[in-house]
C-alpha cells in the first residue's frame, strides 16, 4: 500500500511540471509579437539607400554631361557619342551594385554665330543668291549688318517679287517680315524699306556710301549719325518664333553682317553644308549652350526616370 502511494506522488510532480511548461510556452508565444516588431524596424532603411543612389547617379551624370559639353561643344552628334561612352563606363560600375543605369542626350540648344566680315555680296559660300541663312531659329540674339551703296539696285520696285535685295524673316504659318535695300538716288545712298507682316511699310535713308543696321533692335543710322528706327521682326506680333531667315537677290548688295541665332541651323556637319564654312565669309560657329538629358536608374526596388536640362556653368545645386 505504501509502495503504491509513493508511485502516485511522482505523477503529481509530472502533472504540475507539464502544467508549468504549457504556461511558460504560452507566455513566450504571446510575447513573441513584440520581438517581431523590433526586427521589422531594423530593416526599413532600404528605400533611403535607393533614393540616395538614384540622386547620386543623377548628380554625377549631370556633372559629366556638363564637363563633356565643355569639350564637345560644337555638334550634337559629338556630344551624344561622348555621353554614350560615359554611360557605358559607369553603367558597368553600377551593374556591380545591382542597378541598371542609362543616360542619353535627347536634344540640345545650339547657338550659332554666322559672320561675314569681308565686304562682299550676300551670297552663300557656294555662290547662291537666293538662300536660307537659318531655319527653325528659336531665337535671334543679334543681327547687325553694314550695307554698301555701290551694288544696291536702283529699282523702285522693292517688293517680295521685285529687284531689290530682300531679307525675309518668316514664321511657320508663312507670315513674313521683309527688309528691302536699294539706292534710287543719283548720289551714293542706302535706302531701306521694312514691310511688316500686316503690310505697313517704313523707310529710312542715308546719303552715304554705307549704313549700319541693327535688325533685331530696329535701328538704322544715317549719314549724320542720326538714328532712324523701324519695326523689327522681334516687335512684329504677326511673326513668331521659330523663324526662317532668307536672303533673296543677294548679289544686289555688298557689305558685312553678324548674326547670332539659337537652333539647329547646320544640316549635318559644317563640312557637308554648302552654305557655310568654318573660315571665310560667311562662316558659322555653332556652340552648344544647353542639353536636355534623359536619366534612368533601375534597381529591384526603384525605377527612376529623370529628364533634366544641363547648362554648363549654371550651378543650380
Amino acid at each position, binding site marked *: 500500500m505504501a509502495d503504491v*502511494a509513493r508511485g502516485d506522488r511522482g505523477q503529481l510532480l509530472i502533472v504540475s511540471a507539464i502544467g508549468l511548461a504549457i504556461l511558460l510556452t504560452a507566455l513566450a508565444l504571446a510575447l513573441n509579437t513584440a520581438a*517581431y*516588431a523590433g526586427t*521589422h524596424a531594423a530593416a526599413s532603411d532600404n528605400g533611403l539607400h535607393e533614393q540616395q543612389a538614384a540622386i547620386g547617379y543623377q548628380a554625377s551624370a549631370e556633372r559629366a554631361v556638363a564637363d563633356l559639353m565643355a569639350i564637345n561643344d560644337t555638334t550634337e552628334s559629338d556630344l551624344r557619342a561622348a555621353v554614350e561612352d560615359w554611360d557605358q563606363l559607369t553603367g558597368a560600375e553600377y551593374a556591380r551594385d545591382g542597378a541598371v543605369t542609362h543616360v542619353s542626350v535627347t536634344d540640345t540648344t545650339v547657338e550659332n554665330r554666322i559672320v561675314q566680315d569681308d565686304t562682299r555680296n550676300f551670297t552663300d559660300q557656294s555662290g547662291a543668291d537666293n538662300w536660307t541663312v537659318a531655319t527653325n531659329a528659336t531665337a535671334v540674339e543679334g543681327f547687325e549688318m553694314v550695307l554698301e551703296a555701290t551694288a544696291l539696285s536702283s529699282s523702285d520696285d522693292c517688293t517680295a517679287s521685285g529687284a531689290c535685295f530682300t531679307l525675309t524673316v518668316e514664321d511657320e504659318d508663312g507670315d513674313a517680315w521683309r527688309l528691302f535695300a536699294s539706292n534710287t538716288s543719283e548720289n551714293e545712298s542706302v535706302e531701306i524699306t521694312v514691310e511688316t507682316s500686316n503690310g505697313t511699310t517704313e523707310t529710312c535713308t542715308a546719303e552715304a556710301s554705307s549704313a549700319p543696321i541693327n535688325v533685331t533692335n530696329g535701328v538704322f543710322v544715317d549719314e549724320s549719325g542720326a538714328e532712324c528706327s523701324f519695326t523689327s521682326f522681334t516687335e512684329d506680333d504677326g511673326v513668331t518664333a521659330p523663324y526662317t531667315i532668307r536672303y533673296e537677290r543677294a548679289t544686289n548688295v555688298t557689305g558685312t553682317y553678324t548674326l547670332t541665332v539659337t537652333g539647329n541651323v547646320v544640316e549635318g556637319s559644317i563640312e557637308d553644308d554648302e552654305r557655310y564654312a568654318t573660315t571665310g565669309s560667311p562662316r558659322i560657329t555653332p556652340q552648344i549652350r544647353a542639353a536636355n538629358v534623359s536619366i534612368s536608374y533601375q534597381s529591384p526596388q526603384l525605377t527612376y526616370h529623370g*529628364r533634366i536640362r544641363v547648362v554648363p556653368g549654371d550651378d543650380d545645386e
Partner: protein
Amino acid sequence: MTMNDRAVSTAVGYALALGIVTLLTIGLVMGFAPLVTGQQAEATHSTLEVLGNDLAGDIERVDHLAAAAGPNGTVVLRSELPERVGASGYQIEIDETGENQRYEIRLRSTGPETIATVGFRTGIEIDDTTGTLDGGPLEIRYDGDRLVVSEDA
C-alpha cells in the same frame, strides 16, 4: 484504525495538491491573459506605427525623387511591407487631412483590433482614389502629375 486513516490521508493529500495546482494554474492564466493580450495589442500597434512610418518615408522619398526627375520624369518605388502583423493581416488607408498636401496613413489590424495613424506631408499631391489597400508590398508611382499608391502586383 490508524492504518486506515493513513491511507485516506494520502488520497486526500493527493486530491488537495491536484486541486491547488489546478487552481493556481487557472489563476495564473486568468491573471496573465489580459496582460498578454494587452502586450500583444501593444506590440501590434507599435509594429503598425513602424510600418506607417516606413510607408510615409517611402512616399516622401518618391516625392523628393519626383522633384528631381522633372515634369516629364517617372518614379516607381516598391515599398516592402509585410503581409501580416502579429496574428492577422491589416489594411492601409491614406487620407488627406489638410491644405498643402498634408496626409495621414491609417493602418488597421483586426486581431487584435488596433489602429495606428502616421501624419506626413508631400510636395506633390497623392491620388485620392486609392481607397483601402491590403497590407503587403506596395508600389508608389509618380506619373508626371501625382503620386499613386497601389498594391504591388
